[in-house]
């Protein structure tokens, strides 16, 4: 039942009249792509993709509409239900679930079977599969981990921590030397989610983390509380940059570059800014998040994807485009531009040191998380990350935060 049927009908009639008057029709052989690739590197990668595809398929003209990164997240729903493009960029995991369930993404399982993608894109297959079908093509992913100042560690006689105990010991020494152990900026909320992901995966393991983010475990569960016991050991002594709630993750980089903070749990995309800030490879090290419980390692590695909207008017070309995106040489070149890892395992990987280390880490991981705000449904993710931020600012609010999250969980997953 639609609450606005009459208005909608009359509006539709008027709209049709207007459209007719404007004569807006899309040419056949035109492929419209909406992406949120507004930053320089992603933009260049998509431009390469469009150009290479057109060179190989001269009968198709590709038109890319670039949207602001944050705006895209809200606008996706709108253009999927109204004027749908032929291909959209998006994210794997739970993030694509609402659109699949609402019937807005096209089933592309045929493409996966035909081109052997189950094997070539193996690492991302679970996060692209829903109800036994595949709903898009993943083209890039990137590792998370702790970036640290090798030079500062050396100066203070510190070794790279491998266990939680060692991490705490290092933090004590750094703090004593007047250095904040961890850089972070949580104004945009999500950096706090990275911390929760890693602590939870290290304390309770990958399977538990997945169960929690899919709503099967209460946030007041003793195992979740145990995560916060560990987190307390960093928050209470003040091991995170003060005022992190006031700044974005980029704003925290100067503190890291200037040596006011020594470690930064971040995605690989931060390396570019760290290097631009003046850090050399001799200064900048990468380490896996230390072990806490005796569990197989799991890592965060968010995957970016492309999908065909169900309302696309040129699905044939859209399928050809997705097939093109899945190819090893295309993914290799795209990720060379992006500075990230290709999902296709036959693709050549970038030579960058940090990516190499990250790739090794991910290859040996027992499981991969898509990141808290992609694994948990949007509303839960928002409440969760807000709670994490609040906890990090006011550790005493922890009980209240968890109870609040639990009440949100009960509602969101019902």
């Amino acid at each position, binding site marked *: 039942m639609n609450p606005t049927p009459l208005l909608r009908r009359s509006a539709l009639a008027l709209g049709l009249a*207007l*459209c007719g008057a404007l004569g807006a029709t899309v040419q056949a052989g035109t492929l419209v792509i909406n992406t949120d690739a507004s930053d320089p590197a992603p933009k260049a990668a998509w431009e390469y993709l469009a150009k290479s595809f057109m060179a190989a398929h001269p009968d198709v003209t590709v038109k890319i509409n670039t949207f602001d990164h944050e705006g895209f997240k809200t606008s996706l729903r709108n*253009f999927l239900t*109204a004027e749908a493009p032929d291909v959209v960029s998006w994210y794997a995991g739970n993030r694509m679930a609402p659109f699949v369930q609402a019937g807005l993404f096209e089933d592309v399982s045929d493409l996966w079977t035909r081109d052997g993608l189950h094997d070539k894109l193996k690492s991302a297959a679970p996060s692209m599969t829903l109800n036994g079908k595949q709903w898009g093509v993943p083209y890039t992913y990137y590792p998370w981990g702790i970036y640290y100042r090798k030079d500062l560690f050396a100066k203070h006689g510190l070794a790279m921590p491998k266990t939680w105990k060692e991490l705490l010991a290092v933090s004590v020494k750094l703090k004593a030397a007047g250095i904040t152990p961890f850089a972070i900026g949580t104004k945009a909320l999500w950096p706090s989610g990275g911390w929760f992901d890693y602590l939870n995966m290290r304390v309770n393991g990958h399977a538990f983390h997945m169960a929690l983010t899919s709503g099967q475990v209460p946030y007041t569960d003793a195992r979740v509380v145990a995560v916060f016991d560990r987190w307390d050991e960093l928050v209470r002594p003040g091991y995170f940059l003060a005022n992190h709630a006031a700044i974005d993750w980029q704003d925290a980089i100067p503190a890291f570059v200037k040596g006011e903070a020594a470690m930064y749990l971040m995605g690989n995309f931060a390396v570019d800014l760290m290097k631009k800030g003046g850090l050399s490879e001799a200064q900048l090290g990468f380490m896996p998040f230390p072990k806490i419980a005796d569990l197989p390692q799991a890592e965060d590695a968010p995957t970016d994807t492309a999908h065909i909207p169900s309302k696309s008017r040129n699905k044939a070309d859209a399928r050809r485009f997705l097939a093109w995106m899945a190819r090893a040489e295309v993914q290799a070149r795209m990720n060379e531009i992006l500075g990230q890892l290709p999902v296709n395992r036959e693709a050549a990987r970038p030579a960058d040191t940090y990516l190499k280390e990250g790739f090794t880490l991910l290859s040996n991981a027992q499981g991969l998380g898509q990141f808290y705000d992609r694994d948990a449904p949007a509303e839960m993710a928002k409440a969760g990350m807000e709670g994490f931020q609040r906890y990090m600012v006011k550790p005493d609010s922890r009980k209240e935060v968890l109870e609040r999250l639990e009440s949100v969980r009960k509602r969101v997953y019902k």
Partner: protein
Amino acid sequence: MFPTPIERASAPTRWLYRAALPLALLLWLLPLIAVALTSVRGQADIAAGNYWGWPTQWQAWDNYAAVFSSTPILRYIGNSFLVTLPTVLGAVALACLAGFALGVYRFKANLLVFFVFVGGNFVPFQILMVPVRDLSLALGLYDSLSGLILFHIAFQSGFCTFFMRNFIRELPMELVEAARIEGASEWQVFHRVVLPLVRPALAALSVLVFTFIWNDYFWATVLIQGDHAMPVTGGLKSLNGQWVAQWHLVSAGAIVAALPPVAIFFILQKQFIAGLTMGATKG
């Protein structure tokens, strides 16, 4: 006159007042002066934390050139004009007609209709948001300049009708009666008698609506998604996301975005203030 004119005060008080005025002004405009200064600073000043001292390098050209060449701000500004000008035209035109109807004719529902326009003008935008968005989607005008323009015209016609109606009511009705006796049709009364008389109100109203629409941010974020139709307010917000910590660029962008309404204000100051107070004090 109140307060007592300063000329009647003692000489020291007079001089104190004259000295205090520019000082107060400086303090009042400090935020804007700081932005203007920052917009011409070089990267080195920003990195060194020199935000409040005199700039050590002057990079006005570089900063503004960077804003124009590496961002779509020119397009945003173009969009703002493409939204604002038709809205001003449309809302003022509709309001002339409706204000004429409500100001000249005595009919039963007159006051009720007038109240709907006035009351609607004060509603919080949020109560309109979801239905207006759905309506725009259904019309196929979502994420388009025309969709935004249509909404702005509709909403502004509330305030503008209120304004025009009050203005027209103050006109001498004898002129209307005289024209009717001469056999003028109602349209002719509107077109030949009333319209020429409301010209000053049109100018004032246009300047006012221009500023309102230019500065709109909420509806731009609700009805527009992509750069192709984004006005400068929304564009500036998203640029701010890309320019983290690059305050010299943020400042330059902010100044560019604020320039058109500020320029219009200083050029058409009399009309602007007349409009603001004419619409207001008669309420």
